[in-house]
């Protein structure tokens, strides 16, 4: 829902890096979006196109990679995906903070980022 403002940040940061190096053109931007963010890659693409139109990023290739959500248990050290509770009445697996190994409470440690990983620019 806030892809507009986040993509604005992405474009701003990329342009900053490009300007620092006196780039003539940005040809490719690689993003890594965490699956625990509320950023929909399709919508990021939509905004990217609009926001880069009048810049040296116009027409650049946007590569979006998604990173998995990772939780960690401070009690037993488990690291991995959430435990999902399947509710037969609703047919939706609901993620829970219960540790799948020991029943402790896990913390979210990965998949909450939106990284600009790499930029290719023409100097």
């Amino acid at each position, binding site marked *: *829902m*806030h892809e*507009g*403002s*986040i993509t604005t*940040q*992405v474009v701003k*940061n990329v342009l900053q*890096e490009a300007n620092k*190096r006196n*780039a*003539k053109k940005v*040809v490719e931007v690689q993003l890594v979006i965490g699956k*625990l*963010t*509320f950023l929909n890659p399709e919508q990021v693409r939509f905004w990217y196109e609009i926001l880069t139109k009048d810049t040296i990023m116009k027409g650049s290739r946007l590569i979006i990679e998604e990173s998995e959500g990772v939780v960690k248990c401070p009690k037993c050290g488990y690291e991995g995906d959430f435990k999902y*509770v399947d*509710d037969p009445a*609703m047919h*939706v697996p*609901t*993620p*829970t*903070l*219960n540790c799948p190994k020991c029943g402790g*409470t896990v913390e*979210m440690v990965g998949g*909450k*980022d*939106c*990284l*600009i*990983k*790499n*930029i*290719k*620019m*023409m*100097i």
Partner: protein
Amino acid sequence: MTKFKDVVKTEEGEVFDVELEKNVLEANRKLAQENRALLQKHGVKAIDVMGAIGAGKTSLIEKLIEKLKNRYRIAAFKGDLTTTIDAEMLSRHKVEVVAINTGKECHLDANLVKKALQRLKLDSLDLLFIENVGNLICPAEFPLGSDKRIVVISVTEGPFMVVKHPFIFMDADVVVINKIDLASAMNVDVKSLETDVKKINPRARVVTTNCRTGEGIDAVMAALGL
């Protein structure tokens, strides 16, 4: 004079790779930490109130203010897209209220809160309520620097509100299930909403309320440690 033959330089039109690893969401988290440090320095406890549109966030804050204003010096921030209706409601309680208009954004962010904090005299404050924009999704992505996060839902949003939006509940310290007076009319089982929250976040304290009558407000205060 010797002339270097092998000078390495970038050629015209050469493509240059910049490894960045820049996290765009990190900026907000940093600012949230700064807000938190500032609030702590002045001994102000901040409570972020999130929840769906119309769930009863303003009503809850009003009830809490009524009960707490003799014991604490209170201020409130109210995030809204463009209006100041809620801010006006809150200021009837003779506490300082700062309206934060987010424009078209669906959530408050740490930068807006930082700016609003500059309007307050933090030394003459104990407690700050921050009412977020009505939304069960986006505010989870933007910590503000508060000590406690409340998520307010109400039975009028139906029986599947919690399982449909699990992630906001993961960030909640206290979950308020409001409008319990309407549960039977809505054919919603309050107990099963409670179970859903507990299932997703076993750490959260769950309180059921009627913010019209004030039922359950004491339990909310206890859950917040106030």
